[in-house]
């Protein structure tokens, strides 16, 4: 462990460390990755100092390794997140997240007249801009941008 900040939350033997999560979005990341359903050890740290984010959060999940498609979902709320894959207390791989082309079931459509806001339907969007995230609803064809984005 050469990163002093990581020491604030105890080290893990095997698993995934997700760093550089904006502190205010920690619980969104937890919900997107369904960490509440995981039974292995998880430690969280939040309101940690960060030069880039002001205040950041970190999550260490023991014995869990995510698929890229799974982990990329958090790019909507934590675009600068960095992943460290840990094996035997060592970082064996570093990854960054990337906004996926399609977003299924995470975001609420911004359009109050959209059918997805009136019936139990899994939302689906095509991402039209990855930098300042904006996405087009598969159903009503309206654009939801990052400013109006609400995580389900």
């Amino acid at each position, binding site marked *: 462990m050469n990163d002093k900040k990581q020491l604030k939350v105890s080290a893990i033997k095997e698993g995934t460390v997700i760093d550089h999560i904006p502190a205010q979005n920690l619980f969104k990341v937890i919900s997107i990755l369904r960490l509440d359903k995981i039974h292995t050890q998880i430690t969280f740290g939040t309101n940690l100092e960060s030069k880039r984010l002001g205040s950041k959060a970190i999550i260490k999940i023991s014995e869990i390794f995510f698929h890229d498609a799974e982990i990329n979902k958090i790019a909507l709320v934590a675009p600068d997140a960095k992943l460290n894959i840990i094996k035997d207390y060592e970082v064996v791989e570093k990854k960054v997240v990337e906004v996926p082309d399609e977003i299924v079931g995470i975001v609420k459509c911004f*359009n109050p*007249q*959209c*059918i997805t806001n009136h*019936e139990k339907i899994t939302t689906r969007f095509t991402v039209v801009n990855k930098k300042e995230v904006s996405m087009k609803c*598969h*159903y*009503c*064809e309206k654009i939801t941008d990052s400013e109006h984005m609400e995580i389900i």
Partner: protein
Amino acid sequence: MHSMKNKSLVSITDFSKEEYLRILDLAGEFERKPGQPLLQGYIVATLFFEPSTRTRLSFESAVNRLGGKIIGFSDSANTSVSKGETLNDTIKIVSNYCDLIVMRHPLEGSARYASEVSGVPVINAGDGANQHPSQTLLDLYSIKKTQGRLDNLCIYLVGDLKYGRTVHSLIMAMSKFNTTFHFISPEELKIPNEYKIYLDSLGLKYFEHSDFTDIIDEADIVYMTRVQKERFSDPIEYEKTKNAYVLRADMLKKSKPNMRILHPLPRVNEIHTDVDPSEKAYYFTQALNGVYTRQAIITSILGLK
């Protein structure tokens, strides 16, 4: 060539240029010979969750001319829907009873969703402010019929260009035919930027005007729309503009001989009745073309043509 067979028609962007052209050719066939009993033994459900008499009658006339039977409702007030049945359940049940569903619904995206849960193809007859593709196809048919072609035309769109879904769909469809667009609207109802960006990306020419006076001389098609009071945040603005986007007979004096005036109807006052006797007034024939176009859409989707 049955590429449209069993495919739902939800959005104008669902089909290619070739598929549009095939529908228009077929519509021409039905205009020459409207009574073709191709739908004998077929049942079409017209589910109008909100009333739209003209669109429903146009579809039902098309089905009747084809010899098909119709089930359905014209208003959801006295149906299981008013008892709280979900759209999912209504569509799943009705699709057991018919070969094709024609649906109008007030919520946007409802037609796409219905097409995903239905066992039979769905034709979107309007989903809120989103799409109404059979209207666009009948507009294309009217343009092709009056101009003899769709390529390289100059189209003037007048009125509510911000909220008008017929205008937006028409722009998307005509952008495949090297069209030059003129957008004429009050400041509050200007064409949304996304359409200008789209036209820029295709390298198509367009011009914006706020003044609707002697500018239609170059037009091949003038497409008029209603300017609705409820679209204005300031009622005084509406009062100032409501008479500024009205087409009158004297404005047609120097227009091209081939120019034709279209309107999705109903009109309020945006086309003065003194225009009606002109041979350039095409809006009532345009409505008739809707029946032929819908015959073409229905038979293509059912793989009968």
